């Protein structure tokens, strides 16, 4: 996957700046931030909503849905579900949409500095 040869020389400051300004890199950064920032806002908001409900809406959380399973328990378990689902979606996204671009830029930099 990665190049076998050892890096004899580190890339220069110009090379880094050049790579930083390249269209590939700008697109990669936009793609990464366009995913992680909204998703982070989403799951933190959902977690905060849950904590506030558990903290201030005892009546609502105690409503029994079936057997002894109440709304609070279901919402709590849904936090587990959302965590697993977001993990899965992110890994899929990163493997398909981020890694190829990142790999291309990396090989470009490391290849040129040999």
């Amino acid at each position, binding site marked *: 996957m*990665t190049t076998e040869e050892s*890096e004899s020389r*580190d*890339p220069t*400051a110009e090379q*880094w*700046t050049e*790579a*930083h*300004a390249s269209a590939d*890199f700008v697109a*990669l*950064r936009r793609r*990464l*931030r366009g995913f*992680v920032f909204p*998703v*982070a806002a989403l*799951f*933190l908001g959902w*977690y*905060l909503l*849950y*904590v*506030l409900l*558990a*903290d*201030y809406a*005892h009546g609502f*959380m*105690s409503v029994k849905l*079936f*057997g*002894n*399973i*109440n709304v*609070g*328990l279901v919402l*709590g378990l849904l*936090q*587990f579900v959302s*965590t*697993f689902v*977001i*993990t899965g979606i*992110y*890994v899929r996204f*990163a*493997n398909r949409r981020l*890694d190829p671009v*990142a*790999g291309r*830029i*990396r090989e470009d*930099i*490391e290849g040129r500095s040999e």
Partner: protein
Amino acid sequence: MTPLAQSGGLQGSNPIINISIFVAFVVVTLVVVLRASRTTKTASDYYAAGRAFSGPQNGIAISGDYLSAASFLGIVGAIALYGYDGFLYSIGFLVAWLVALLLVAELLRNTGKFTMGDVLAFRMRQRPVRAAAATSTLAVSFFYLLAQMAGAGVLVSLLLGINNPAGVSLVIAIVGVIMIVYVLVGGMKGTTWVQIIKAALLITGAAAMTLWVLAKYGFDFSAVLQGAVDKAGATGERLLEPGAKYGTSEISKLDFLSLGLALVLGTAGLPHVLMRFYTVPTSREARRSVVWAIFLIGLFYLFSLVLGYGAAAMVGPETIGQAPGGSNSAAPLLAQALGGPVLLGFISAVAFATILAVVAGLTITASASFAHDIYANVIKRGEVADKQAEVRVARITAVVIGAVAIVGGILARNQNVAFLVALAFAVAASANLPTILYSLFWRRFNTTGALCSIYGGLSIAVLLIVFSPAVSGSETAMLSGVDFHWFPLENPGLVSIPASFFLGWLGTVLSGEHDQAKYAEMEVRSLTGAGAEKASSH
């Protein structure tokens, strides 16, 4: 939190079985550590296990590092006694991993070498930010270590029937010495293998107990809940509803919110968790390791939900509350109710191993931070002639930290374990997380900003803790007989975390420092992994 003075340990517990299983664990792990030590030569070996672990291996080790005694004994006990409110701990501890996965793990792996200080020092003035990063690392590790050692003390009196202070202190000292040997001999590789073995034992043990509990109730979780409600008597229904612990007043509700915030933002700032990301060869493996960790940790917390209510149903809150060790004894008592002295011995040994492994992980992190950031880069200004000297300093530091942990553990042996861990989380979320996030994502961030957010967050968090009801002026306070508290909340997160974000911003805009070239390099490195440290093969 005063355990009833009883002549022996847990009734029906067999100290000989407990000790033999524990000794077996120590022997097996020591052999593994010795084997690992053969290839530990360079600084990269000692700190980062030569970056040679795979994602799944590191993921299991992360869960081993993360599922501390507080997670196991603390959460099961909290659910058994307070029901639903205990469950909220596990949710915070789990959701927190998304912060690590999405925002921190991979970028950190690509940018640094061994410590958090590496990431900050990349584009800032080396010496001040490394000193700051090492200070907060040592502070968080210290709180976390205290919690684990205090947990060891509780377990000792619970399981071995040793109640006199001298005996408990002796056992804490033995635990500390074994842990120092792990770290000295095996370095990060040995420590990682200890985590992997321990995680496998802990998760398997919890899974077996969960299935056992569910089988007793016809695989109907609702029936387990009914059992817990019935056993608790008149107030049983309260176990299923939120608020049993934190719902009593407006202040305690705010406290709960503060705790929730500290839990979800603390994980990605815990130094021993951050350091684990450096033991893998690429950011892709770092990602895989977090995914493994999330699934294992999530699974474990689902088990602990069943175990907590199972303990409430089969043992009962009253028995648990009166047992030596209080709520911490719920999981061992449940093991005893299910499988008699042998299962109790196994679960107790696992709990001991848990403490041992977490303490070893913390010790190596703290010693690496001191040797790499303070010794090599602040004192020697990055001009250490040979890396062997740095590793030697790290080993000496590990011994010192181990000794401090032993003394601290002996002093803190009667403190509430979960409370101390929540404290470490609050300090990590206040001092470390804002700094790391700004550093990775904010172009403008600079040395002044980093110093403000680290020292500001750290001192506000510690100050608020000192003047909180947790330390003085309440029934459960650390110090009895004095009352100098003026901050109403036990957990400082609600105030200290936003304050640290604000201070980081303020410090940055007040300083004109900005190194665009270094920022460009860091951003390219962090997103692509270009120029990152590769794995060393042996």
